[in-house]
């Protein structure tokens, strides 16, 4: 097989045993890597007892997988998966950086973690030299101290063990912050500063396994490909298309904080009570002033859309993060009533430091603030915090309580959806209507009410990754998550695939690297559907604490049925009748029955008889 190293590490944290696993070429040809292969491994190992598995228990797996294109495509990524503590299904959650490349150069396509370590642990890999090490000294520490301490430690180890080879480059690293250690369901797995695999809550899964970090240095080359000349040719084509996208390269997504408010009216404002603003204070021209590095990118990226933002003076001195990108501008800015770049950079930096996903954390904070606005949560409930819109210090204080599970923080640490369940029963008031989530996952910062942004009615409710704005259900289905599944399995960054030229070249690149002739037809009709259906099956099977009913949960958040009251799209709201029709239409177009369950015929057509059998019970319950 080409483009792969052909080996996956399996690390049993309970026993400390480390072994190599081989995946057959047949399985790789069907599931590619990243999200797809993660889904396959999870289903094979846990599928028969899926509903019984506690995502934060010892039986869950933490799977870290590259794909065949990782390293060969401009802007490669790695995919984290496992049973999600947010959705109880599977989320493929990716981050970019050098970690994916270092892992492949060390000779591994990925790592499967099983069990739970006895004490805080990190994994150090140098090619085939692999060691579990004590992480007690960094347990409880934030991102900066964790990164600097462990990188230094690893370089010292390498320097001692492999003397006389010259200076050791730092190993790449993925890690969790205090939020993951405390099993906050909004916790991310992070790399560098601010490079987060946020959706899914896999920071909490890492925390449940007492795995603080993974550091890897690979000194070999990337694996052989089927046709190197063609690989370079296609990769260059994709790179050229990205390089031509000059405004996106300059601004990254940081132009969104203003634009998605004033132009498309689809930006969350104060827990989505509004989606329109025209605050020029939040313009990209203001953010640019904080960028000490105007292009900041990851291995092989032609776009380098990230920016290094630093605050060097004033009350927020010491804050370091990326742009912030649009999602963080919105969720840790406008959604909290904050329209000042410096306050937004400060909160984003704090979220990074604590190890949260900015989207999940910002959604959670705004949910709490709306409950405070409505008098449902009192100042006493909030441990004395006066949680007013726009007050960045108040939000900072609350998110620290969440990271430490102090007071109300213990409830909020369960994430917006589960916190809404708890607070509803605690207060005897239904607060679920203020939770803007899909399948337990906070929805990305792109609303649908104005009809001007890319998501539509079914985008989040029918996505197998819930609120994930990068993996949305669309019609025709080829435009939605069936395509994202390829990106997350290959594994690559969607931001280098905006242009039609790059999209076309992707199929050629996949062939040049792997030697397999995978056509769009085969992908959309067969391969992507297998992965989609298994993800859907796991979502419906759910977990010990909760499961989803398509009838109730394949729906928009309540908030979006309320009309917008400001801006040019004032009065617009989602329509319930149309919603029901769209959902049925989407079910039909992806091969799910009228109850939203992957149909028996469809599953048999794809050779997924075991999934079909497992869903029999569910079909009987729902019909």
């Amino acid at each position, binding site marked *: 097989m080409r483009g792969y190293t052909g080996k996956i590490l399996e690390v049993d944290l309970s026993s400390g045993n480390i072994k190599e696993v081989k995946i057959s070429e047949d399985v790789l040809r069907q599931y590619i890597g990243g999200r797809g292969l993660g889904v396959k491994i999870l289903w094979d190992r846990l599928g028969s007892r899926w509903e019984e598995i506690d995502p934060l228990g010892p039986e869950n797996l933490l799977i870290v997988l590259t794909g065949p294109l990782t390293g060969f495509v401009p802007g490669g990524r790695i995919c984290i998966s496992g049973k999600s503590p947010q959705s109880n299904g599977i989320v493929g959650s990716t981050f970019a950086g050098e970690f994916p490349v270092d892992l492949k150069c060390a000779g591994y396509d990925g790592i499967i973690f099983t069990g739970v370590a006895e004490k805080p642990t990190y994994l150090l890999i140098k090619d085939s030299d692999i060691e579990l090490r004590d992480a007690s000294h960094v347990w409880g520490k934030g991102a900066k101290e964790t990164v600097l301490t462990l990188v230094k430690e690893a370089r010292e180890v390498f320097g001692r063990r492999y003397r006389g080879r010259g200076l050791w480059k730092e190993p790449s690293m993925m890690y969790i912050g205090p939020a993951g250690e405390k099993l906050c369901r909004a916790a991310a797995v992070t790399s*560098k500063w601010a490079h987060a695999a946020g959706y899914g809550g896999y920071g909490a899964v890492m925390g449940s396994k007492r795995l603080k970090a993974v550091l890897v240095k690979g000194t070999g080359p990337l694996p052989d490909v089927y046709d190197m000349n063609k690989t370079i040719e296609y990769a260059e084509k994709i790179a050229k298309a990205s390089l031509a996208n000059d405004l996106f390269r300059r601004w990254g997504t940081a132009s969104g904080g203003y634009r998605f408010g004033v132009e498309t009216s689809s930006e969350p404002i104060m827990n989505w009570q509004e989606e329109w603003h025209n605050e020029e204070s939040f313009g990209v021209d203001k953010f640019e002033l904080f960028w000490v590095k105007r292009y900041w990118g*990851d291995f092989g990226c032609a776009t*380098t859309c990230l920016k290094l933002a630093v605050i060097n003076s004033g009350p927020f001195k010491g804050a*370091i993060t990326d742009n912030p990108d649009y999602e963080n501008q919105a969720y840790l800015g406008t959604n909290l009533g904050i329209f000042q770049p410096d306050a937004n950079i400060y909160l984003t930096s704090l979220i990074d430091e604590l190890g949260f996903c900015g989207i999940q954390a910002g959604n959670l904070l705004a949910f709490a603030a709306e409950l405070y606005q409505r008098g449902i949560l009192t100042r006493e409930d909030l441990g004395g915090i006066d949680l007013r819109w726009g007050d960045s210090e108040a939000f900072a204080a609350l998110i620290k309580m969440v990271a430490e599970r102090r007071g109300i923080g213990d409830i909020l640490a369960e994430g917006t959806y589960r916190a809404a369940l708890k607070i509803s029963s605690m207060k005897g008031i239904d607060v679920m209507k203020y939770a803007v989530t899909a399948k337990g996952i906070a929805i990305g910062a792109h609303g649908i009410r104005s009809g001007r942004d890319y998501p539509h009615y079914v985008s989040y409710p029918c996505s197998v990754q819930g609120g994930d704005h990068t993996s949305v259900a669309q019609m025709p289905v080829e435009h939605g998550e069936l395509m994202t599944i390829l990106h997350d399995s290959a594994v690559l960054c969607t931001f280098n695939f905006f242009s039609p030229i790059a999209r076309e070249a992707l199929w050629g690149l996949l062939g040049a690297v792997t030697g397999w002739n995978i056509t769009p037809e085969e992908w959309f009709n067969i391969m992507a559907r297998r992965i989609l259906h298994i993800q859907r099956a796991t979502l419906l099977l759910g977990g010990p604490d909760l499961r989803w009913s398509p009838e109730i949960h394949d729906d928009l958040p309540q908030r979006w049925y309320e009309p917008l009251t400001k801006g040019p799209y004032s009065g617009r709201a989602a329509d319930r009748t149309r919603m029901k029709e769209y959902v049925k239409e989407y079910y039909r177009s992806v091969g799910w029955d009228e109850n939203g369950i992957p149909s028996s015929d469809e599953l048999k057509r794809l050779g997924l008889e075991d999934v079909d059998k497992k869903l029999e019970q569910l079909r009987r319950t729902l019909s």
Partner: protein
Amino acid sequence: MPSLIWIYRNYQNCSGCRRCEIACSLSHEGKIWPEASRIRVFMLVPGIEVPHLCAQCHDYPCVDTCPVKALSVNKETGAVIVDREKCIACGRCIDACPGKVPYIHPRDNYAVICDLCNGDPKCVKACNEGGWNALQIVRRFGGYNFKLYAKTPEVITRELAKRFYGEEIAEEI
């Protein structure tokens, strides 16, 4: 005709994309191989990426120190050329280099040093293409200044951290 050139480096502009490492290793190894690239981007602190490569010191201490005369200077480009057959990977050139730039090839066991691609450096091309311009080709004149750039990534990182993150934050780092 190759001419006496130098790769000017502006660390603040480095995006950390490592397209220089890809271009270099493809050209020298026929593979994408960051750890065998003649230019290595260090990131001892995230956000501070330091392209690390030979500065062609005027007095070439690495060449002087080589016990087996495996290193020589290409008169036309000024680059240090390593004779793989002669090199015994003793590491003395690394010790002699003020920037600790050379390192031992991860597979083939010889000292790896930038050869300026015989006057047409692929890394610079990759960097310019993206408009980052952390690396630029300049005509070489004078002598002693180049050695100032033969610094370890640790030293450069510390200087940049002060600039990017401010004195106080740099101290923490």
